[in-house]
């Protein structure tokens, strides 16, 4: 399949002004992304961390630990906090306020579990203790009624973590999504993909 840049494509179809009028070209998006990263790095250097608008400092610390337990760094991509998931979650809580009570309550529920088991809150727990709690609430098989609420919260928290991670540049690259480009021709899917599914073009 022939890939051409978006700007070239628009010029080809005689719609060059479109390119100028639209919000982002890939190059601009790249630039913006770099800019954002630099800004974040600079902010970190000045030791001025992101100040959450919805989460309390304690909640925000809990969120940061939780999202990295859910999506840790590995050899293919960084962690959820590397991808800015806590900042994203804070934004979504303001943007979709109907999520606030369930989020706040769910985090409180996790802290309560930790208090009962280890006499301290989740962030104060050792890694092993945190995992002990997650092992009890992160799996949807054989959930006893007493844990149903925590499991439901975790399902939803995990979904929001996934939304925050896989929609970043890093996440999209990790998933190897290859679209959102201009093609001047659609040739269907490549031979290798056809073979894997056992199908062919007649």
């Amino acid at each position, binding site marked *: 399949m022939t890939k051409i840049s978006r700007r070239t494509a628009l010029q080809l179809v005689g719609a060059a002004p479109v390119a100028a009028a639209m919000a982002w070209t890939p190059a601009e998006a790249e630039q913006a992304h770099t800019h954002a990263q630099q800004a974040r790095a600079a902010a970190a250097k000045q030791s001025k961390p992101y100040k959450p608008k919805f989460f309390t400092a304690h909640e925000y610390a809990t969120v940061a630990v939780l999202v990295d337990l859910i999506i840790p760094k590995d050899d293919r991509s960084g962690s959820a906090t590397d991808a800015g998931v806590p900042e994203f979650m804070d934004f979504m809580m303001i943007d979709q306020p109907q999520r606030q009570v369930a989020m706040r309550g769910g985090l409180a529920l996790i802290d309560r579990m930790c208090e009962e088991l280890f006499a301290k809150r989740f962030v104060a727990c050792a890694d092993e203790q945190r995992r002990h709690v997650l092992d009890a609430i992160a799996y949807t098989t054989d959930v006893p009624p007493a844990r149903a609420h925590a499991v439901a919260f975790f399902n939803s928290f995990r979904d929001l973590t996934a*939304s925050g991670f*896989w929609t970043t540049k890093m996440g999209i690259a990790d998933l190897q999504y290859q679209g959102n480009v201009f093609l001047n021709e659609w040739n269907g899917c490549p031979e290798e993909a056809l073979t894997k599914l056992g199908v062919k073009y007649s």
Partner: protein
Amino acid sequence: MAAKVLCEAGADVVMLEAGAMWDTEKDSRMSAWAYDSPRRGASTAERPFGEFDGCIGGWEIEGEPYTQAPGTTFDWFRARMLGGRTNHWGRISLRFGPDDFKRRSLDGLGDDWPIGYDDLKPYFDKLDRLVGIFGSAENLPNEPNGIFLPPPRPRCYELLIKQACDRLGVTCIPSRLSILTRPLNGRAACHYCGQCGRGCATHSNFSSPSVLLPPALATGRLRIIANAMAREVTTGESGLATGVSYINRTDRRDYAVRARIVVLAPSACESARMLLNSKSSRFPNGLANSSGVVGRYLTDSTGLSVSGYIPKMANGVAHNEDGVGGMHLYMPWWLDNKKLDFPRGYHIELGGGRRSAPSFGVMGGIQRFNGKGGYGKQLKDDYRQYYGSTVSFSGRGEMVPNDDTYCDLDPRVVDTYGIPVLRFHFKFTDHEYLQAKHMQDTFRQIIQELGGTPLSPMPSRESGYGLEAGGRIIHEVGTTRMGADPRTSVVNQFCQAHEVKNLFIADGGPFVSNADKNVTWTLLALSMRTAEYIALLRSQLSL
């Protein structure tokens, strides 16, 4: 469509638009990535289909309520922007077939249209040439061929589905979408970004502001008044329409446009609302409503969806699977209702794979895939493995009109402009529920044939087999239906009001019945026919 035809025929046209102006070249968010927004593409109050969607509107609009009769649900989708709901649709462009105009003759339910397929065929042909549509000539009896551009090759999971459908005897053919696979009438061919729903900045798919309004404006005879909330059709002593009164949404004052001819096309229910609100001593029941039929015979398409996880598609080969902004294959209705326990059919729309960039909600409900959820490195790998490994099937079927389904004016509630609002009454019957059950069984059978597992359990009869509430499929029609008899219909076969000969309706209101097909293409053909009829009457000086 009516404005274009009338302007080109030499008429001076004033168009009232309830929303703001919209320019697909400037206003489309085509090509935006989720990370371009802190919201990552999630929905907002005015864009329920995601913040990058090309349609401003939704089932709830601030300041514009509607009500529902106790115990019934109908969700009314409205767009508030130039081009209205042509900005929100799947570009699925299916001609109603010969049987769809004479259902009563075939099974005794509902009513026949006063016209047949042959009356509309020339307009369908003109529409195909004007707007552009891809597809394939299959010579199926009730799925008429069109004048098609070549269809795009299927995506690989679509081939897999076709393979399964062939084994199950389900007809699976290239879809018919109004997206250009070749340049047409000065518009560029599709560039396969798969984002039709955001509005196409290169005019390669159909929406009214992108395709029909530019030529209408080029005549110099079209004036568009934006932010004009139409309130009622005004009439004179002769009983003819004299124009439309509207409220300017910006200054909230009343204005009026005087006209020789009034064409309503604000959507089926909005037209009914305007007529019902156009009360006078001469028309105490609302305009063109001596029959009491305005608001009656409301139907929406039936609809439900089932997704499945297909292990064979897991760990897929990475490639660009965007394609056009819709399915490349679909299944038209393939069975004979005489052999089934429900009277009308449905078609099936496909989704799945790696179509469209990850955005808000991506890979949600991972526990449905891996059966457990989890966290950590294993979970991260699961996401990678399952990404792009689902297929989805959406049924869109025909509902039979019934006496309990209609809209009227709520006797107490007004909107923020002081205009009385609609009250909906809605009821499905076993005709629809049994059809929904058949959809569920079929989709689950196809998923099974693909070696997969459905991502949701089979819904019970009590939950209506998963049938979406009325209005959710956004194909409502019928509220100002056409007919030969003024006692049982609002308009004649040319969508001209029986009682007010200079009043026409060019939206879905005049439909006598829905079909197992999306309504847009038939609505456009009908609107073109209506507008050409108006132009003919004017040229004969008989109006």
